[in-house]
């Protein structure tokens, strides 16, 4: 009788030499233990490496975005105050930047340490003022309502209306078509020493032999409310009455000039306080420059009437209310004094969640890395004849 398959196998197994009998339980246990120890240590190693790789990635990403934001600011700021000169009489101190400083005192904290959220008062805003391309929008000479441009032919900006000639090489209709609702204009007197600024409330139109600009009336001294002058060229940060100083008043007469401005605004959009974003606005278009910005402060060195030395003029001033020189007709918020701008930018990586992430930074104690950068930019058009 033939053996069953089981019997055959047993027989075969018995025939095999002792060296081929497989693992004993002890051998298996030892092997499993060794494998466990080695793979556990490998896992620990990889876990640590993954953490540090993620940290490094966040840090590098933060560094890159800070650099990009700083480069963008440098490019824009270096050209502040440009485009003024062709035709218009600008003194040695054009308006190149205006700064909205939120000066915080200890009692009014603008960030929430529990939720690590940041609100608008933590951040400054920076307006970079430059004239619109002077080839496309040449300065316009002032006239009265009939188109006369003698020094006695004036319009009254306090009434919300001003008149100008056709731009050189343009017809009246072409000139009017270049000025639309929302455009901000700078009005200068014939020596360039006095200014006011208006925002058009309707498109410019041809009225008789002049171009008519319509805007909200300026104050009697040529200053404006912040609503009528959002760039704060003549609004003293909304502190009224604004000291007279270099204001034009309401008489805009022949020999005076109107310039179209092309401002760029940097501010922090904290509508989502968990992710404040640095934004750049130009001609109505807003782009995000950097996310997770938790500090944006703008300071300026100001022209100090020629008495320059390292210890005084090297100080950067983070409160625009003190932009003043000690001369008659002095005023606060005198942005014509700004010579060099320092921007301090602080960013963070995306906050991590979960108990596994134990890192806490030394800045605000949040579960993310924090990196700060400070750049100084000297606007090329703001340093003349000091």
């Amino acid at each position, binding site marked *: 009788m033939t053996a069953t398959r089981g019997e055959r196998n047993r027989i075969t197994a018995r025939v095999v030499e002792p060296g081929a009998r497989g693992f004993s339980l002890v051998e298996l246990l030892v092997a499993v233990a060794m494998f466990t120890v*080695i793979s556990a240590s490998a896992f620990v190693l990889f876990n640590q490496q993954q953490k540090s790789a993620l940290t490094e990635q966040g840090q590098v990403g933060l560094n890159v975005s800070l*650099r990009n934001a700083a480069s963008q600011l440098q490019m824009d700021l270096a050209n502040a105050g440009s485009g003024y000169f062709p035709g218009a009489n600008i003194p040695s101190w054009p308006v190149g930047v205006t700064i909205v400083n939120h000066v915080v005192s200890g009692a009014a904290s603008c960030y929430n340490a529990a939720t690590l959220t940041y609100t608008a008062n*933590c951040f400054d805003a920076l307006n970079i003022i430059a004239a619109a391309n002077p080839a496309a929008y040449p300065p316009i000479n002032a006239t009265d309502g009939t188109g006369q441009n003698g020094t006695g032919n004036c319009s009254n900006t306090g009434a919300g209306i001003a008149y100008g000639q056709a731009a050189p090489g343009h017809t009246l209709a072409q000139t009017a078509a270049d000025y639309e609702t929302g455009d901000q204009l700078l009005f200068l007197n014939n020596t360039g020493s006095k200014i006011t600024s208006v925002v058009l409330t309707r498109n410019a139109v041809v009225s008789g032999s002049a171009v008519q600009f319509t805007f909200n009336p300026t104050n009697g001294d040529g200053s404006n409310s912040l609503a009528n002058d959002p760039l704060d060229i003549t609004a003293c940060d909304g502190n009224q009455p604004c000291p007279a100083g270099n204001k034009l008043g309401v008489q805009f007469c022949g020999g005076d000039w109107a310039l179209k401005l092309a401002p760029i605004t940097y501010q922090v959009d904290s509508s989502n306080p968990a992710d404040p974003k640095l934004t750049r606005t130009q001609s109505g278009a807003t782009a995000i420059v950097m996310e997770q910005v938790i500090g944006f402060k703008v300071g300026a060195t100001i022209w100090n009437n020629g008495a320059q030395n390292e210890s005084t003029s090297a100080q950067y001033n983070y409160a625009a209310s003190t932009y003043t020189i000690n001369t008659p007709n002095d005023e606060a918020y005198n942005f014509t004094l700004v010579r060099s701008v320092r921007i301090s930018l602080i960013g963070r990586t995306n906050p991590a969640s979960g108990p596994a992430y134990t890192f806490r930074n030394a*800045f605000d104690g949040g579960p993310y890395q924090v990196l700060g950068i*400070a750049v100084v930019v000297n606007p090329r058009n703001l340093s003349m*004849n000091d």
Partner: protein
Amino acid sequence: MLPSAREQPLDAGFSLLEVTGAIFILTIGLLAAALLNSRMVGGGQRSQYMSLASTLATEKLEDLNRWDIDDPQVCVPTGTADEGSISSNVLQTTTCDSGNSAGVNYYDDVSISLTNSSGNCGSSTSGCLAETVSSVSGGSTVYTTTYHSPDGQINTTAPSATAPTSSTFHRRWVIEGNSPVAGTRRVTVLVTLLDQSVQPPVTFQMSLVRP
């Protein structure tokens, strides 16, 4: 002598030598991975220092660009090739052709760090970002620190003679008159990280030509 693979029975298991060899190779592999990681972290840190150094070089050039052409900070008197040096610290009185004269330091130190310094940060419950810059006052070097707190407060300390300790960058600059052409001057800034543990050393040099 060990039997060759062909002679060895198919199910003889691993010898101790084989297991040791395998563990040795595995260890080398793991160590290489760990080394790669630490190199990566070190490289990332160094690139961050480099980027900070280039920012600080630009900052100093922009800062020097602010001065009027007849200011002692940037003038080069007739008969002098250059003022300042990038190979040594120069602190001197410079007198311009126009007669303007002042003590000028052609070097400074900058340090940017996160700190918990409770007396200086705006809030006692959180830290702040500290920027320390040196300048010259009365012929000696002093350090001024600006603290930025999370709540938006900015404090500036009175100038002190104590140098910052952490990750300090040293900046030296030289102003060459009538270079590269007559009527212009070339400003060159050299930024060096003083922390020698970062290798290779972090240095960055940059020039700007101005009137």
